C-alpha cells in the first residue's frame, strides 16, 4: 500500500529478487511434493461456466450454450449432468470434431432437442435420465422466465441485464417462488446473460474469457489447488455421493406415467427428426451413484428410457451403473468427468464416429 521510499530500505542490487525467486521455487516444489497426498482434486470443473443463455423458442427457455454451439461438430444435449460430466476440453482432444453443449438445469429434453436441430452439428449425443421425462423437475424453470432478455445494446448491456433480472425476480416472487431461491436463480441467469451479451457483443470479452479459462484449466490440471466455496462448510472439497439420492427419489415418485409417456413420445419424435435430417445421434445414460439409481428405479423403470431410444432407432449407451465417482450422487467429480469423457469418446469411436 505504502510507497514512500523514505520509509523503505532500498536494495541496490537484485539480491532480494533472487531470494524471492528462490523462495517461490522452494514453496512450489514443497507444494508439489506434499500437497497431492493431502489436497483433493477439485470436485468441479475449474472454470465452471454455465455458458451463455439461449431460448429454444419464444417462451421456451432459457437454456445454456457452452462452447461455440453455432460452429460445433459434436453437440451434447441434456441436463446439468451433461454439463458437468462431459468435459469439452477432453473431447476437443479426441478428434471427434469441435464439441459444445446445450443444456439446462433439470432440463426438459423435448424442449432442447428442437434447439439442437437448429444447430449445424452433425453428431449429437443426448443425455437421457429420469429428469428428461419430468417437465417440472425445476419449478423455477417450468413456472416462469418466459420473457426473453432484451437485445444487447452497445452502451448499456449491464443495465439491460440488471433490469431484466429485476423483472424476472418480481415475476417469480409474484408467482409464489421462494424469495431466496428466486434471487439465487435470477442472479445466476443475470450472470449468464452478461456472458451472453459478451458473446454477441464486442469480441474482447470473449477473448479474455477464453484465455483465462485455458490458463486456469492448465494450472488446475498441473498442480493441486485450493479454493473456498460459498455453499460448503469445509475447506477442502469432499464428495458426498448420497447427497441427492433422497431428492431424486422424491422427484421420481412425483412424476406421472402419462406425462412421462408423452415426454417419451416427444423425445422419440425429435430424435427421429434429427436422424431423418442426416445427423448421427446417440443417447447415453450418464453414471450415477447406486443409491440414487436405486431410489429412482422403482418409479421410473430403466425400460422407459430404453423404449425411447428404440422408438427413435438410435443407440443407447447405458452407463448409469458404471463405476465413476460422483460428487453428490448425480454429477461426476471433475477428474472422474475427465475419465468418463475419455471413456465415452472411446465408445463413440467404437460406434464409428
Amino acid at each position, binding site marked *: 500500500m505504502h510507497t514512500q521510499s523514505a520509509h523503505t530500505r532500498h536494495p541496490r542490487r537484485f539480491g532480494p529478487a533472487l*531470494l524471492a525467486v528462490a523462495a*517461490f521455487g522452494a514453496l512450489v516444489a514443497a507444494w508439489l511434493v506434499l500437497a497431492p497426498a493431502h489436497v483433493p482434486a477439485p470436485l468441479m470443473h475449474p472454470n465452471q461456466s454455465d455458458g451463455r443463455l439461449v431460448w429454444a423458442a419464444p417462451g421456451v427457455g432459457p437454456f445454456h450454450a457452452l462452447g461455440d454451439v453455432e460452429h460445433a461438430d459434436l453437440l451434447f444435449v441434456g441436463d446439468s449432468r451433461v454439463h458437468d460430466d462431459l468435459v469439452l476440453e477432453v473431447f476437443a482432444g479426441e478428434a471427434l470434431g469441435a464439441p459444445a453443449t446445450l443444456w439446462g438445469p433439470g432440463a426438459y429434453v423435448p424442449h432442447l432437442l428442437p434447439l439442437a436441430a437448429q444447430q449445424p452439428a452433425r453428431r449429437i449425443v443426448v443425455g437421457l435420465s429420469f429428469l428428461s421425462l419430468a417437465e417440472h423437475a425445476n419449478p423455477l424453470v417450468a413456472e416462469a422466465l418466459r420473457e426473453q432478455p432484451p437485445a444487447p445494446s452497445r452502451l448499456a448491456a449491464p443495465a439491460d441485464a440488471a433490469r431484466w433480472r429485476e423483472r424476472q425476480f418480481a415475476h417469480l416472487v409474484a408467482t409464489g417462488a421462494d424469495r431466496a431461491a428466486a434471487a439465487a436463480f435470477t442472479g445466476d441467469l443475470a450472470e449468464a446473460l452478461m456472458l451472453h451479451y459478451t458473446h454477441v457483443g464486442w469480441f474482447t470479452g470473449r477473448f479474455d474469457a477464453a484465455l483465462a479459462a485455458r490458463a486456469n484449466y492448465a494450472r488446475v490440471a498441473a498442480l493441486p489447488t485450493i*479454493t473456498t466455496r460459498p455453499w460448503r462448510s469445509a475447506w477442502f472439497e469432499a464428495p458426498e455421493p448420497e447427497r441427492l439420492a433422497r431428492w431424486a427419489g422424491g422427484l421420481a415418485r412425483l412424476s406421472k406415467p402419462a406425462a412421462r409417456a408423452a415426454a417419451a413420445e416427444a423425445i422419440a419424435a425429435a430424435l427421429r427428426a434429427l436422424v431423418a435430417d442426416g445427423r448421427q445421434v446417440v443417447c447415453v445414460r450418464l453414471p450415477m451413484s447406486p443409491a440414487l439409481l436405486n431410489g429412482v428405479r422403482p418409479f421410473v423403470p430403466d425400460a422407459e428410457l430404453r423404449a425411447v431410444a428404440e422408438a427413435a432407432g438410435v443407440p443407447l449407451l447405458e452407463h448409469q451403473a458404471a463405476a465413476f465417482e460422483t460428487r453428490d450422487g448425480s454429477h461426476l467429480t471433475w477428474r472422474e468427468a475427465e475419465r468418463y469423457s475419455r471413456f465415452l469418446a472411446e465408445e463413440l469411436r467404437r460406434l464409428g464416429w
Partner: protein
Amino acid sequence: MSFDSVSFWLVFPCALAAWWLLPWRAAKAVALGFSLLFYGWWNPWYLPLILASSLVDWFAGARIAASAEQVTRRRWLALSLATNLGLLATFKYAAFALTNIDRAARALGGGGFEVILPWVVPVGISFYTFQTLSYTLDIYWRRLAPARTFVDFFLYVAFYPQLVAGPIVRASTLLPQLERPPRASAWRLQHGAYMCVQGLFLKVVVADNLAPEVDRLMSLAAAHSPALTPAAAWLGMLYFGVELFADFAGYSAIAIGLACLLGLRFPTNFLYPLLARGPAEFWQRWHITLSTWFRDYVYIPLGGSRGGPWRTYANLVITMLLSGLWHGAAWGMLVWGGLHALALCLERALRGRRAPSVGVAPLRSFGGFAGAALGIVVTQLFVLVAWVFFRAPNLADAGRIAHAMLIAPFGDPLGWAALGHARHLVLVLPVVLMHARRGLREWCGWRETASERALVFAAMAFLLLVVRRDGAQEFLYFQF
C-alpha cells in the same frame, strides 16, 4: 482489459518494452495508444467521451493560462466545469434523478414514466473527470502551468495504470514526470513487481474469495431470511469491509506498481486504514487521493475550518455528501456519506483539532496503546456499520442488515450458527497481518528488511498460484 486478466499481462510486457526502448516522444505516443486500447478493450464506444473531455480541458487550460483577464479566465473555467460535471450528470446521475422524479410523481398521484437511459456509467468516468477538473482548477488558481503538448496531457488523463479506478493523480504530480525520460533502477523494478504481486494477491486471493460470502449476506437481506442473524450480519459486513479494502487497495497497489515499473511515481492511495483511530484519520488512510481531492477542491474552497465550528460542520457535511454521491448515484451512498460527515463532526466537537492524524501523530503518541486500540476498534465498528449503506442494493435491505447488527442483538438470538462461515476469516488474516506489520512500524519503529519483503513476495506469488478464486469479479471501484 483489467489488471487481473491474462490478456493484460500478455500485452503489458510489450508496452513496458516500448516505454523503455523507444525514443521518449515515441514511447509516450505508444503508451497513449496502449492506454486507449486498454480503455477501449472494455467498450470502445465510450472512447469519444474521454477524448472530448480531454480536448475541452486542454484548450480551456491553455486559454486560462494565456489570458490575464479574469472574466476570460472564468469563462474558460466555466466551460471546463460544465463539460466535466455535465458528463457526470448525464452518464452517472441522470438515471438516479429521473427515477426519483418518477417516484415522486407517482407518490403525488401523478402519472409515472419508465426511466430507461440507453447507457451505463462509463468505466472510470468519475476518476478521469476529477483529474481533468483538477488540471483546469489548478491552472486557474495559478498553481500549475499547462501541459506542453496534447499528447502529454491526454496521456496524463488516459494513462492506463490509473485510468479506470485511480489513484486520482494530480497533473502537478504526473505532468512533470512526463517531461523527461524516467530512470530505471533495481529498486523501482523490484518495488514495482512487489506492488503488482501484492495487488493481485489482495484482489484474486482475498477479495474474490470473500465476494460470494458478501453476496450471500445480501441475498439473505433481499430474501427477508431469518438466517440474517446478528452474527451473520456482522460477519458478512466484516467480510465486505475486507473485500472492499483488498479489492480497491489491490487495484491501487497494481497501479502504483505498474507506474514504478515504468519509472514513475504515483501517490499513495491507501495507508493501512484498519489502523485509523478516528473518522478523520480514516480518511487520511482510505482512498487518500480522493479525500485530498475533496479537501483541496471542495472543503477548502467552501471555507474549510476558517469560519467557526458551525460553518466547519456545514462544510464537512457538504463535502462528505458529495463524496458519497461521487461513489454512486444512490440514496444509500448519500446515507453513507452523511454518516461519515456526522462522525467527523462529532469527532471534531469532542476532540477539536487534537484528532489523531497520520502525518502528525504516529500511533504511540496519541493516548498510549490502550487509547489507540480503543480508537481503532470503535472506528472500525463505525466504518463497518456505515459500509452497510454503501454495499446494500437499496435502503430497505440496508435497513434489515443494520437492524440485525445494531438492534436485534438486544432481543433476538445472536445466531452463532452463522459462524459456520467463519472459516473465511482465514482470508481476513493476510490483511490483518499486513496492518499489524505497519502497526509495528508506527508503534515500535520496526522496519522490514529487503530480504523479509522478498519472502513475503514469494509467499504471495505462491498463494496466487495455488489458491483459486470462485469466479472472477470485476474490480468494485469500476462502477464508480
